[in-house]
């Protein structure tokens, strides 16, 4: 098992190196190059040359890449130019990262705790009214654009019914102490439970909007996978042993059926980051999705670099966790 994890970690390093090359190449390919991007098109040749020297752009390309890697490892991407001008880009990332993670984790948990049981039930009651309705709803979940659903939810539950807050992560009237940047967790740690509760209420609508696509995908994969496993010979063997339904469902059906679902969950986290951009905009969430949208608009290359690289690292880490989960469930992967 340890050898398995070490091997996967090494693969991870490879992935990150390739991604850093891509980001580096992208910076090189910026219209007019980095210097034009920073100084504008009308800068004098002298100023351009000075900046090129200052940035090391007169060096050979592999030296430039090596410098880029060294800076990236130290978290030095320069100052933000558009999102929070003047602030260090990596600090911008750090202050916003917990907001996005809180939202994404909440959405993913929601998608999993709803998607797996409902998918299982739909498979057990195949072709029933429940099964057919769930399939229609999951199709709608995939088909409706995230931002549109976000608007609908916001309009209905926040504006019309006024059950839940319209936007943001915390009511401005609450003066909560910050520990980790995860607002719900902070409230629990500092025993400011009203702050936690308020943060949780703010989380509901955005995470619902963000959860729809992963939910629909997890639901459908679980359903298909359970249907397949129910036909397996080993389920019949389990039945022939007279085992209780609880054991047959948990140990023999679900455990096998979850293998493809775990893979799907890993893949969905990528989509979650994309969805976060749209959802965070609608709910003024103040996370990375927000920052990314603004950075694109205002060509804040420092923040873009950090976000892209860190998104890639996060994605790779999550996939490592998924692989480990897979190995825990499936012994055949472990010994391979």
């Amino acid at each position, binding site marked *: 098992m340890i050898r398995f994890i070490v091997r996967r970690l090494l693969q991870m390093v490879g992935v990150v190196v390739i991604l850093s090359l891509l980001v580096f190449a992208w910076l090189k390919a910026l219209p007019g190059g980095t210097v034009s991007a920073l100084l504008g098109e009308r800068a004098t040749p002298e100023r351009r040359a000075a900046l090129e020297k200052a940035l090391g752009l007169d060096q050979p390309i592999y030296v430039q890449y090596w410098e880029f890697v060294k800076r990236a490892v130290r978290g030095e991407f320069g100052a933000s130019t558009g999102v929070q001008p003047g602030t260090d880009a990596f600090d911008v990332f750090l202050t916003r990262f917990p907001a996005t993670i809180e939202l994404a984790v909440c959405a993913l948990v929601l998608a999993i705790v709803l998607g797996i049981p409902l998918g299982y039930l739909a498979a057990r009651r195949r072709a029933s009214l429940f099964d057919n309705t769930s399939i229609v709803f999951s199709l709608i979940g995939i088909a409706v654009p995230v931002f549109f659903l976000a608007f609908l939810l916001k309009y209905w539950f926040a504006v019309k019914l006024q059950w839940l807050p319209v936007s943001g992560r915390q009511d401005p009237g609450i003066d909560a102490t910050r520990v980790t940047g995860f607002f719900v967790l902070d409230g629990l740690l500092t025993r400011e439970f009203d702050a936690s509760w308020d943060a949780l209420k703010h989380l509901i609508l955005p995470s619902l909007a963000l959860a729809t696509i992963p939910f629909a995908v997890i639901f459908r994969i679980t359903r298909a996978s359970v249907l397949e496993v129910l036909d397996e010979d*080993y389920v019949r063997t389990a039945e022939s*042993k*007279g*085992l209780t339904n609880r054991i047959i469902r948990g140990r*023999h059906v679900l455990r096998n059926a979850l*293998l493809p679902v775990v893979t799907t969950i890993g893949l969905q986290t990528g989509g979650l980051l994309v969805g976060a951009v749209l959802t965070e905009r609608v709910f003024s969430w103040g996370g990375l999705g927000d920052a990314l949208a603004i950075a694109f608009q205002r060509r804040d290359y420092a923040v873009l670099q950090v976000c892209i690289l860190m998104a890639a690292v996060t994605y790779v880490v999550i996939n490592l966790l998924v692989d480990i989960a897979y190995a825990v469930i499936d*012994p*055949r992967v472990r*010994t391979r």
Partner: protein
Amino acid sequence: MTDTLSTSQQHRNDDTPLLSVRDLRVTFHRSGEEPFVAVDGVSFDLRPGDTLGIVGESGSGKSVTSLAIMGLLPKRGVRVEGEVLYNGTNLLTLSPDQMRDRRGAELGMIFQDPLSSLNPVVPIGVQVTEVLERHRGMSRKAATPLAREMLDRVGIPDPDRRLKDYPHQLSGGMRQRALIAMALAAAPRVLIADEPTTALDVTIQAQILAVLKDLVEDTGTAMIMITHDLGVVAGLVDRVNVMYAGRVVEAAERHPLFADPRHPYTWGLLQSIPRLDGARGERLNPIPGSVSDNLPWTSACAFAPRCSQPIEVCTQRTPELVEDHGRSLRCFNPIQHGRPSPDADTTRGTSEVTR
């Protein structure tokens, strides 16, 4: 528990069947298709310690018979009629939960493909102990030594290590042994073995059959051995039911059946076994045609189109199962003294073969 069992066994007259299948009929209903009768009025008895072989080609209804006895047929689209009396209780009228209490505890089953029949993500040990946990109310910890003993009894070497192994780490023969250990863990009184050696190498087949034979003799478990291979039942069972297209066509004690097969289908099955003492270059004698060439039992003998010696009546009336001197036979023109009957309309039989 064991005390009361053994005394009740002593009280019981040895001729009382442990399992008595009466007029079992299984019909599959698929929407848009004619109902298909897979098992059509099958009856047999199994006394404690008996071993019964059910022999027939694929599609003869032998596996469906065993699944019907175990209550493992899907609920939807399947109609099961008749009686399956176990110790006097009709299993077909039991609730799913009552049946669940008996499966694994009173009736055990082993299946054809040992790899796909084992859960790939659960250790072998757990797959054995879960039977004991369920039916003996034991804890996992208390059941583990017993599971180890079971693995040892079915001839799995190094059982302590194998308890923790997963199915993919075992060879085919070991997997089938593990399945046997699971099926027999809670000491059921009836064991149904559905083609237990079909997926295995010939050398392994013999080992598995030996293990089954020993266990059945040691524990007094009654066994139903389902197979398409008369060679498999030859050294193992007391009695053989030969099935064709959902009905029993011949049933007899093993020795008379092998020495003097009366039904042309039984005869054909015996002829199609390759023989080591046969002349070099001798051709095998398969039964011509396939199960799909059947006539409906309701108006004829289903086997008539493939029969080596059909007579006119075979395609006009349904032959009844007639019992005579412990042998049941469903045939208008049986084989006499191991040779096809001289009155047979042999031209038809030959034309079938050369077709």
